[in-house]
């Protein structure tokens, strides 16, 4: 490590200097620099909208910078597209996965790759063999002929990395690779990253989870508001060092911000009753549950326990096989429309597939669940006031509420979705992995908002893979295992051990 610090720029694998990029009036990057050395995991830290993805997209050839130089292994490049960057050994694995679900693993890994092409088309046998070799390197044991869409999230993530390896990438840019992974999946991704680093690959890593950053990084670069703030090797960097540099002064108290879980008020009412809910696929296998006003319930469980399926059945997205849902003693119908009307609102777990309409404006996205009669004119000025209210309240970073949602950074998109659900004043707000991709500061703010909503009598159900998050905000911990509720514990009695036992089915 120490040896690298004094190295001449000639030893860098990638050198970015004076990078600036504006999107219309928004200066996303302003004179930013980044140096990547061979065999390091380099964490790019910064708040939502600080320019991390933009910097990686420039390096990966997805977009071009306005000014600045990109030097890869001593040669200056201006990558016109992703392919050109890949040819030079630089691959970006974007915030949203870009695999083709219907194609097989092997096809995805070698998409667009020259070597597998032969005179008479593509040699799939050879490709599959080559693919297996790469998957072995990643300790992935999967059939290369199955469609990628059928694989779990973490394996899809690794297949994106396999793709990078197929192109012999020496620089791999991972934009929030862990945001959609379960904790154990994160661990296996980290193993692969370490292994690649030891083989000499330079890896850029982005995450909003402090623990992950501190665990995996060899070096840090911090961005704030599109500017380069600092860079340092891992030695001597701790969470306060990072927070100090990432966060603007006004929010410097974040590290300490802890939410006090209020004991549920005595006057609480039964808001929602779920009785033996079962979906058609059998992934939700008879869940009964009562939720009270003024209470935040955290739903824990392992991947595949059926948590997402449960909440999606609750709001009518998945077909109900049997069972009932009642809100304030009134039966709720089986469509999403019925659920929203009855006051059940869901922030889904997967932004790209389930919640963001990227080409639609921030305004329309934010108000997507709100509606009047279908043919009644919408009042643009009234809407504007509502939307701007949320933009201020959640500190959504956007230059124009009529700009398409895709112009916002990932975390800010998520805030828009949360606002969408809050805007309909639900009785039960369900959040499936609500803070996915949201920075530390905003996360604390969202917890505070949830807390105050609960105090106003709302019932909140959050699904989270992070036990920490569950313990931090819940009044009551629910655990699912194999499609059923395996524990329902008051916060005061919930311990990590107890929850894990319930999640693995070892609780009677």
């Amino acid at each position: 490590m120490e040896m690298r610090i004094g190295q001449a720029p000639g030893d860098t694998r990638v050198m970015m200097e004076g990078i600036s990029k504006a999107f219309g009036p928004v200066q996303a990057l302003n004179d930013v620099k980044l140096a990547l050395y061979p065999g390091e995991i380099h964490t790019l830290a910064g708040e939502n909208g600080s320019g991390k993805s933009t910097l990686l997209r420039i390096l990966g050839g997805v977009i071009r910078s306005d000014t600045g130089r990109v030097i890869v292994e001593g040669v200056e490049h201006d990558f016109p597209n992703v392919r050109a960057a890949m040819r030079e050994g630089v691959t970006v694995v974007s915030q949203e996965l870009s695999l083709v679900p219907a194609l097989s693993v092997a096809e995805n890994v070698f998409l667009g790759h020259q070597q597998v092409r032969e005179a008479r088309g593509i040699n799939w046998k050879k490709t599959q063999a080559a693919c297996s070799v790469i998957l072995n390197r990643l300790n992935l044991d999967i059939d290369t002929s199955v469609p990628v869409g059928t694989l779990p999230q973490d394996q899809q993530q690794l297949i994106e990395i396999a793709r990078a390896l197929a192109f012999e990438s020496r620089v791999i840019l991972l934009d929030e690779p862990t945001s959609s992974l379960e904790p154990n999946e994160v661990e296996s991704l980290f193993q692969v990253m370490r292994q690649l680093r030891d083989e000499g690959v330079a890896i850029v890593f982005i995450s909003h989870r402090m623990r992950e950053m501190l665990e995996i990084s060899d070096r840090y670069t911090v961005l704030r508001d599109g500017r380069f703030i600092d860079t340092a090797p891992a030695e001597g960097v701790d969470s306060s060092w990072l927070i100090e540099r990432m966060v603007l002064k006004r929010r410097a108290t974040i590290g300490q911000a802890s939410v006090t879980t209020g004991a549920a008020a005595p006057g609480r009412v039964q808001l929602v009753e779920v009785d033996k809910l079962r979906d058609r696929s059998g992934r939700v296998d008879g869940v009964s549950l009562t939720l009270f006003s003024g209470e935040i319930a955290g739903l824990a469980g392992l991947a595949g326990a059926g948590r997402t399926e449960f909440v999606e059945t609750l709001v009518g997205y998945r077909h109900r096989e049997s069972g009932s849902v009642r809100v304030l003693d009134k039966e709720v119908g089986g469509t999403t429309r019925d659920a929203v009307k009855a006051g059940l609102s869901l922030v889904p777990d997967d932004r790209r597939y389930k919640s963001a309409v990227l080409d639609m404006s921030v305004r329309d996205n934010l108000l997507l669940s709100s509606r009047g009669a279908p043919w009644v004119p919408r009042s643009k000025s009234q809407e504007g006031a509502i939307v701007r209210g949320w933009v201020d309240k959640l500190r959504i970073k956007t230059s124009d509420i009529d700009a398409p949602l895709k112009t916002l950074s990932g975390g800010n998109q998520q805030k828009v979705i949360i606002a969408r659900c809050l805007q309909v004043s639900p009785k039960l707000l369900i959040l499936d992995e609500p803070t996915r991709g949201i920075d530390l500061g905003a996360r604390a703010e969202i917890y505070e908002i949830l807390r105050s909503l609960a105090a106003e009598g709302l019932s909140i159900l959050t699904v989270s893979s992070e036990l920490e998050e569950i313990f931090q905000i819940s009044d009551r911990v629910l655990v699912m295992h194999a499609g059923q509720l395996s524990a329902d514990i008051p916060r005061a009695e919930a311990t990590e051990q107890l929850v894990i036992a319930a999640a693995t089915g070892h609780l009677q």
Partner: protein
Amino acid sequence: MSNVGLSRLRMTALPPWSGVLMLLVLLIIVLAIFEPAFISMGNVNNIIRAAAIPVVLGIGMTFAILTGGIDLSVGSVLAFSGVFLSILAGFIPISLAVLVTLVAVTAIVGGINGSLIGRIGLNSFVVTLATLGVFRGVAYLVTNGKTQTVDPGVIVTALGDGNVGPVPGPLLVMIVIGLIASYVLRSTYFGRDVYAVGGNEVAAQLAGINTRSVKMTVYFVSAACATLGGIMSIGRMESAAPTAGAGLELAVVAGVLLGGTRLSGGVGTIAGTVIGIFFLTCVSNALTIIGVSSYWQPIATGVLLIAALLFDRFRLEPSRRAKKIKER
């Protein structure tokens, strides 16, 4: 490098139909210089009248394509609607027949296309390809293949070909329908739902939108537009031919896509559709003036359709483009 950034910025800042508008203006200027006859009052009048029916159909088509679907049955529905009206006109006064046709044909066609696609969830391309055949066939059957002469009366003539005061009737129809459609898409919840369904259907559904009913409704809208087109064509031809509007779906889809509506849904405007169809109409009108055989017209339309798709492809921001290319 900065130049590239700038031009890309401009591309995204302008409305999606600005490209085809520029082409249209360019075409008009070039033709005005080399074929002054093109901008004579008479010819402009011709172009407006020729564009009116495809524009009306294109407006309906825009709704369908915005949800990520397509309605290939519009040309056949136009013929069916005309034949329906011509038969009805034998029994009841023409003005009443027009109303009954509008309601009945819209209900029949929209009902069939809409429930198969919206309710049952069948593929819109296949369903409307089938109904393209069905309604054309019905039009042949009930007329026995013969063109029916109709006395269109003042109202239908005004809609299809006549003047209202100094203004061509078809122009008024276009303007009224266009303004209504544009208003619906921009300023009603239904319009927003149309974009949402095409942009991300799962997200729309999870947000509480009844996506089935939105998809169903757009085929009613398209059916209504095609039915109106059939009535206008009677005003124009003073007869109802079972062959009317054959192949029209090509020009209509091409115009909509040229106008910047994305084939996969979620992006597009009525203004773009109107401009796109006017562009195609001007091209075919110009070919006629220059004296090129009319057989070239579908070829020109087809080529322009592919050009529109290519243009759309390359207008996409590079990240999307990369993804799309990967998807091939």
